[in-house]
């Protein structure tokens, strides 16, 4: 593979065999600023039979779809770990004898270990995803699953689909509520999951769309149509979309972990000191740990100060929808509902808007919402002294995370805060150089730990505000040294740099990093 060095000094391939050519990363906004309008994916015009689009089975639907070996199929991951649609469809495709497909889901739930088997069997020969975890991550990092893997952010995937770099031939989209013409919604039915934001982009651009539902409603589906009938070619009715207990995860609980709570409190203090928490501000936070816990302090402060935010964005948790309910935000833009506490808000609150992934985060359209974010709270597996963030590779060097909207929101938001405990599993979270760059340090304004707040030297103004507010600001090298005094420094991971396990695309389509196989 011919490699080149990108603007962050990382070696990346100029071409990935079987996938195509890539440009090296040149800076967070270099490609965007240099962009001349160009034509992207060609929208296929198609006609459908009037009325009923019901196919008798997944197999029938596959036959009618025109799927051939070598083509690209997609799925969404809105049903979380409860999803049974992707495994069911892959099983049918395997039985029908397909091979050499590109699997391009919006992401892969942790539960879908079966993908590893379909890679081994030859059904899947290329994988485009937001991330991989569990056994699949191990197989890819060890080289046992030897196929090209391209990791994209949510905004980067929307861009790649619209630009034609991901050309979806058949999208199999789980539909918690669907009518016979294919109008579908995510916010009702026994497998309700809330927003279908990622699926919307697939439905719009795929050459053929198969809705898979366990809840065929009388025509027409009356409320909250996420995906309209004119984008859907066939509808398959199955007994179940998956495990309702894992789809309906219940409200995400706020952590009781005292370290995470301290990080959350420090984060809140930094937000306050920066002046970002003001009437009309916009905000995105994560779904767990310290990131979610920020909402405890934020909510109290906004109530006391009568601050109403303009919008909350992103993956939406029950805590965000409750803040909408209480009037603390005027609007929620919801590309993905993180827990089922959100579903009823999507279904019934007119100010809770379902958005597609392009509207959310695609850098190559006339204006995505992440660009209007005032503040985002993000998590990390590790960070480095240049403020680069890795959310993909664990301390063992194995793929175990997802890019999600990390780099999109960091680039878009005026204040991007990364929260991370200063050490985990006895290993310092601050490295000289992260194992893999997901989000470039230039777009990260601050890193908040339980042992202090680290501010990017590029943000002298933020540093001044934090100092003025007497926040526990620490220099990143100093904290690293202090933590390493406790933890020691682990041996570096031995990679086989002749073997690429996955390439990491930045949101603009350039390659920001390469993940190698472990020895």
């Amino acid at each position, binding site marked *: 593979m011919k490699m080149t060095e990108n603007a962050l000094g990382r070696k990346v391939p100029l071409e990935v065999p079987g996938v195509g050519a890539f440009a090296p990363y040149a800076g967070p906004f270099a490609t965007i600023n240099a962009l001349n309008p160009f034509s992207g994916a060609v929208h296929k015009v198609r006609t459908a039979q009037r009325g009923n689009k019901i196919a008798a089975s997944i197999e029938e639907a596959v036959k009618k779809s025109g799927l051939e070996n070598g083509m690209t199929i997609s799925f969404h991951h809105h049903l979380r770990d409860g999803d049974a649609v992707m495994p069911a469809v892959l099983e049918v495709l395997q039985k029908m004898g397909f091979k050499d497909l590109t699997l391009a889901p919006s992401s892969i739930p942790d539960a879908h270990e079966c993908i590893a088997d379909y890679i081994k069997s030859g059904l899947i020969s290329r994988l485009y995803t937001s991330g991989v975890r569990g056994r699949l991550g191990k197989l890819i990092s060890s080289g046992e699953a030897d196929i090209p893997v391209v990791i994209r952010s949510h905004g980067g995937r929307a861009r790649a689909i619209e630009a034609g770099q991901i050309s979806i031939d058949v999208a199999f989209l789980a539909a918690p509520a669907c009518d016979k013409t294919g109008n579908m919604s995510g916010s009702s039915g026994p497998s309700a999951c809330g927003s279908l934001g990622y699926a919307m982009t697939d439905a719009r651009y795929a050459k053929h769309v198969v809705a898979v539902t366990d809840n065929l409603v009388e025509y027409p589906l009356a409320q909250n149509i996420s995906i309209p009938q004119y984008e859907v070619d066939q509808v398959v009715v199955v007994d179940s979309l998956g495990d309702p207990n894992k789809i309906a995860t219940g409200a995400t609980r706020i952590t*009781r972990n*005292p*370290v995470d*709570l*301290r990080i959350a*409190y420090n984060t809140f203090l930094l937000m306050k000191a920066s002046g970002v928490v003001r009437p009309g501000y916009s905000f995105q936070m994560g779904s767990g740990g310290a990131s979610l816990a920020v909402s405890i302090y934020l909510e109290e402060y906004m109530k006391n100060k009568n601050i109403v935010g303009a919008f909350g964005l992103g993956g939406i948790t029950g805590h965000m929808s409750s803040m909408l309910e209480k009037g603390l935000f005027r609007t929620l833009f919801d590309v993905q509902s993180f827990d089922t506490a959100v579903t009823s808000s999507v279904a019934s609150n007119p100010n809770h808007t379902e958005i597609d992934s392009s509207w959310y985060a695609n850098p190559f359209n006339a204006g995505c919402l992440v660009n209007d974010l005032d503040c985002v709270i993000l998590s990390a597996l590790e960070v480095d002294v240049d403020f680069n963030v890795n959310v993909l590779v664990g301390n063992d060097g194995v793929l175990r995370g997802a890019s999600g909207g990390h780099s999109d929101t960091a680039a878009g938001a005026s204040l991007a805060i990364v929260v991370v405990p200063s050490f985990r599993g006895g290993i310092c979270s601050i490295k000289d150089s992260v194992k893999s760059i997901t989000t470039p340090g230039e777009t990260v304004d601050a890193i908040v730990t*339980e*042992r202090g707040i680290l501010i990017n030297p590029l943000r002298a103004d933020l540093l001044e505000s934090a100092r003025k507010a*007497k926040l526990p600001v620490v220099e990143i090298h100093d904290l690293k040294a202090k933590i390493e005094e*406790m933890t020691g420094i682990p041996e570096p991971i031995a990679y086989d740099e002749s073997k690429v396990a996955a390439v990491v695309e930045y949101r603009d389509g350039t390659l920001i990093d390469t993940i190698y196989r472990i020895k």
Partner: protein
Amino acid sequence: MKNKKDKSKQPCRSMLYIPGDAPGMIQNACVFGSDSILLDLEDAIAPSEKDAARKLVRSFLDEFDFGELIVTVRINAADTVYFKKDLEEIVPADPDAIRLPKCDSAEDVRKADALITEIEKKNGMTPGGVKIHAMLETALGIENAFEVAKASPRVSAITLGGQDLTADLGVQKTRGGHELFYSRGRVVVGARAAGVMAFDTVWTDMNDPEGLYNEAKQIVELGFTGKAAIHPSQVDVIHKAYRPDYREYVRAKRILEAAALAEKEGKGVIAVDGKMVDGPIVARAARLVAIASLYDYEEEEGLSQ
């Protein structure tokens, strides 16, 4: 203790209990914002883990930099087989204080005092460096509060152990805490009379920060100098209860200014806003300003401008 400093003048509003067998928590002790920690070898540790916990706490005291934190270790009571072993292992590591459970009388303190002195001498330490925080956990202990507090110069605090005490009194701990009213008063007065700190017992319901706040507010008003916490989330609640009112803070600062001026001018009488102010009021103002310096009054200062 590693990098030990004199912390005897530091405020000690909160004491966070950390089980002595929980290295994962001890290593994070500095991040929760408490004024002090209590490494517990007593109630939190099962009999089978006593030896391991004692060794672990010793290692942490030897190796770990607790920074500005006041570090105390609660050992097992004198009537247990662990008492002597605990002191022999922990005292040489020079913690700020030993928390001594079940002190019923001055004699209980003096026995521990003698043993600690012996260990200090044997280890070439200056005798008296390791303080005693004496726990009063019985009706008898409460009645002897003052005697216990002045039993030895080593005693720098007496502390009320609410759970055993309510059991000894034959009452239930209530949310309002009126059953402890007399005992708390006795501890505060005894401590103040002997010139030592007075610490209050724990609030056991982790999920009731409001109840904790009300109780903390009550004991601050009673005159306790600190309160123990069983979970890091309780620390901020206790500190909130200790936050002096801004107007009192401003008044206390003016009292100190007036006192400083009077001393400079050699006047015996201090007047603030036309009112006479005497010694104890100046001392209280100094304590209040010391505590207030730990808080941010930016908002109130903004409003008053």
